[in-house]
């Protein structure tokens, strides 16, 4: 909705341009609250989903990248599926997380990006996820050494955790992807 005029004094026009380019029309939001109502994790958010959308429309990037909400979002897509204005809210959360990481903003939920980092580290190395290695790396990084110990042991005893990683053959392509292929054209 290009003609919607939301213009607080200070807004980050770069953020708005980025959202537009990704087809995320935050200006179309009329604050009906459907997204917030259906969010399974909303009870734990500091900003409700509809607040995230409105703040994005205001270009208030700083509040957003520091929020708990962007890290607690599980990408379940309930909000975007039910939004009557077809706003890609889950994709908005993706953009905000990526921005927060690129700007090295201290995450309000530090363990969440550490988990993603460990997960991606495993893919970067093997081309596939190797669970024991990924969990080990997450535990080391997060310092959460004792959490889920009982569960881990149970899975181990049930032979659910593979002892050796499987590396794919063509690791060059994976390396290219992780070294930022395509990013050279991205702002």
């Amino acid at each position, binding site marked *: 909705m290009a003609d919607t005029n939301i213009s607080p004094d200070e807004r980050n026009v770069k953020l708005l341009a980025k959202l537009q380019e*990704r087809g995320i029309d935050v200006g179309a939001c009329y604050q009906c609250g459907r997204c917030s109502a259906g969010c*399974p*994790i909303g009870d*734990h958010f500091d900003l409700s989903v509809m607040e995230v959308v409105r703040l994005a429309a205001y270009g208030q990037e700083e509040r957003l990248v520091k929020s708990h909400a962007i890290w*607690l979002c*599980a*990408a*379940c*897509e*309930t909000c*975007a*599926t039910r939004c009557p204005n077809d706003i890609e809210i*889950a994709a908005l*959360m*993706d*953009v905000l*997380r*990526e921005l927060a*990481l690129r700007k090295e903003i201290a995450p309000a*939920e530090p*363990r*969440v*990006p*550490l*988990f*993603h980092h460990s*997960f*991606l580290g495993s*893919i970067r190395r093997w*081309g*596939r*996820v*190797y*669970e024991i290695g990924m*969990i080990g790396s*997450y535990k080391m990084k*997060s310092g959460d050494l004792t*959490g*889920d110990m*009982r*569960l881990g042991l*149970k*899975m181990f005893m*049930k032979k*659910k*955790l*593979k002892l050796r990683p*499987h590396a*794919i*053959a*063509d690791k060059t*392509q*994976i390396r290219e*992807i*992780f070294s*930022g*292929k*395509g*990013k050279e054209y*991205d702002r």
Partner: protein
Amino acid sequence: MKLSYYPGCSLHGTALDYDQSVQRVCRQVGVELVEIPDWNCCGASSAHMTDHEIGMRLPMRNLVIAQELGNDILVPCAACFQRLKAADIELRRRPEYWDVKSYSPEMKIIHIATFLAQEQILGRIGASTKRALGGLPVACYYGCLSLRNPKITGAEKWEMPENLEKVSAALGARPVRWSHRTECCSGSLTMARPDIAEKLVGDIVAAARRGGASAMVTDCPMCQANVESRQDPAGEEEAIPVFYITELIEAAFNGDYSRRQQGQHLVTASVLADLFAGDSLHKED
């Protein structure tokens, strides 16, 4: 019928038993699976949540390989399915942007429940069923990613899906009516915030019990692992097992649910074996 097969990392790890049951069921109903050679991880939620380019390029590599094989792709994991679908839509839209010369294959990406609920396959499942599941009350649980966002998944009924119910009913089980069929299990948040995962799973399990189910049935390996592992650790006696839909099919094919198979579950999973044992007692008197 020949399909390309994308198992994904879960099915080669903690959900290995899901992979095996999918393969055996497909063989039984006359569908040949050809694993996509040298497939890589789809990136799951971690990639698209933190890096758009990586989140797209990882699944795209698999699609480019699968394009050569030409067949439709069968995907048992809901997360992989959603990532492959998202990449497929984007790659068709502008292949050159993603450094692919051309991409417009006929091939479709099919999630397992959609595949199984086709009339033809349901018929073959019925024909191979040795022992119907005697009205076992099951709560069919879909979770998020095979359904949402329907713009990506192409799901026709994303709020009131029915594929798992169709398959369960064809096996003689009784799908119960309940409230949390498409609620989120917390996905990958489970590692960093187990407290939230326990809350969400607790609500889901309580709803399944209220519906009268004695087991849950799913088509997502992440839902299966989260719902079994995040149930109240103290109340293990009353824990509700979560079966993969293909496990349920195999049990009906074989009229048996072995101890070995039960051992794959993180909670007591004897309800199918009990059902069959009860049946045979019945027959004897």
